[in-house]
């Protein structure tokens, strides 16, 4: 099957909106890592009286899908209140782009995560609202909803690929059930480790395919 980007993705990839840095940003957050593939940084300028996003910019070390999603979610976020912007989902971003190939969905998740992290940082630092919850099965489950199974672009919790989550003094064990010679097994394990590692209080992540 031919994997193609939509005209909208190409348009945003070619001429991304809101690219760059905001000096003295009210919040900024980076998601992803070069080692795992893409990385995105989102900068926010927020009106402290109205909590409205006055300006938003992003930078991307990433592929077309990552750059295009960064462009579209910064468009969507601009002018919205932080609560409205925080509610933007990766599904919305992908829909705005006319869809993304399933295998590239995780790049759009990353861009949305970047926006959300920046907003939560602002909420924590400026408004004193702390989102970082305690390390428990629920937090890990929520985080794993951001790990997509590449062939279909649906998260591994919804697909019931996660069989067990165990937590013992900061050591997290995740058991998944994926065919051992599936070509997406290794990248998916890497992504699980990347996501779970960033939860506060996590000391180690052990993923086992059962």
């Amino acid at each position: 099957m031919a994997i193609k980007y939509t005209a909208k993705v190409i348009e945003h990839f070619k001429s991304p909106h809101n690219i760059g840095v905001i000096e003295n940003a009210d919040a900024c957050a980076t998601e992803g890592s070069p080692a795992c593939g893409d990385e995105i940084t989102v900068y926010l300028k927020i009106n402290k009286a109205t909590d409205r996003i006055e300006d938003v910019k992003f930078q991307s070390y990433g592929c077309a899908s990552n750059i295009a999603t960064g462009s579209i979610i910064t468009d969507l976020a601009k002018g919205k209140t932080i609560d409205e912007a925080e509610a933007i989902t990766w599904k919305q971003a992908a829909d705005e782009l006319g869809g993304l190939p399933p295998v590239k969905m995780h790049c759009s998740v990353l861009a949305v995560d970047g926006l959300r992290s920046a907003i939560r940082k602002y909420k924590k630092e400026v408004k004193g609202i702390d989102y970082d919850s305690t390390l428990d099965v629920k937090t890990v489950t929520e985080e794993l909803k951001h790990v997509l199974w590449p062939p279909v672009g649906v998260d591994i919790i919804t697909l019931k690929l996660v069989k067990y989550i165990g937590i013992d003094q900061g050591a997290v064990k995740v058991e998944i059930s994926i065919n051992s010679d599936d070509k997406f097994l290794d990248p998916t394990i890497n992504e699980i480790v990347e996501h779970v590692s960033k939860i506060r209080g996590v000391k180690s992540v052990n993923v086992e395919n059962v």
Partner: protein
Amino acid sequence: MIYLDNFRSTMVAPEVWETMRTAAIDEYAVPAAFTQCGTGAAELIERAQDRLATAIGASQNEVVFTGSGTEAINIALWGGVWAQTVDKPEIVTSEIEYPATLAVYRALEKEGYKAHYIKVDGEGMYDLDQLSSVLNEHTVMVSMMGVNHMIGTIEPLAQAGTIVAEASQRAGRRIPFHVDFASALQTQRLDVDAVKADLVSFSSNKIHGPKGVGALYVRKGTKIRPITFGSESYSPLVPGTPNTMGIAGFDKAVELLYATFDKDVERMRGLTNRLAAGIREHVPHILLNGPDSAGRAASHLCYSFLFIEGEAIMMFLDMDGIVVDTGSACAAATLKPNYILMAIGRNHEQAHGSIRFTLSRYNTEADVDTALAKLIPIVERLRAQSTIRPPAQ
């Protein structure tokens, strides 16, 4: 369009297409004895066998035509190991082989064969000491390649062949040595005796021939069993009706290849050197993947552009009408960085920024200059918008 992805596949040469058209229309009969049309088709195949055989220092009946390079590799490897009865059989290849070879090895591992994967150095050269050390009385196959498709390394086949021959003497039987020459045929001459090869695989579409045809050299006396079965053909290894149209096209491609071989190789070497010099002059923060200059296939160049991602570079070049390839995980169907770049010690980030330029005899100096002129601003632009910055000067 400026096509710089010739290690993936090449344009069918106009003369090749003309030959195929004639073969399809005038020589459509199944090769057979006695009738004029049947013998005509049989002679077409014999001519093609003879031409390729002569080019590699072999005899006509040591060459058969397959459905692809991948099929040639499958016949060589499965057919070669199945023909031997050795206790606790072991198979040897390297970690940077073409996916077809690695896929067969993994399948053989599941069948109980013990596989050894030879490591390579930072430029992709085989560790020949390791090769010597793993060969033993259990070895039933050694498979190596002439030129690495991702990084262009010209591998030391003759030394590898000697090592296999010495191990064969110690083992008291011939250990078959298979050479994947598909990526090498365009720029390297081959003498099957000089490299002591028993089996050699070729692919037509890498040298301006059609897709759907490859070839396999089988040294006389090599133990090999067919892996497919069907009606009688010119060789039991390739039963069924031969693809005369494809074979005629491949034959023409081989003829054209050797008609201007040295001149073309020298010219392509000049073009890749020109591109490399231009990249080095105008683009900072780059890494050459594979050996420099003479150690690299003449038509091949692979650079990593640091701090940016290869799929994005590839797509921008594509929009400018320039076709290249990348080893980035983002562009791979598996979301994994290219295994060959990882094997030569690149990290994920360096593999992500890799772009492979592979030329053909049809490329010109203007192609290379245009590609460079388009590449420079693309790299600058992607770097300007990247989260990763070069370290401060």
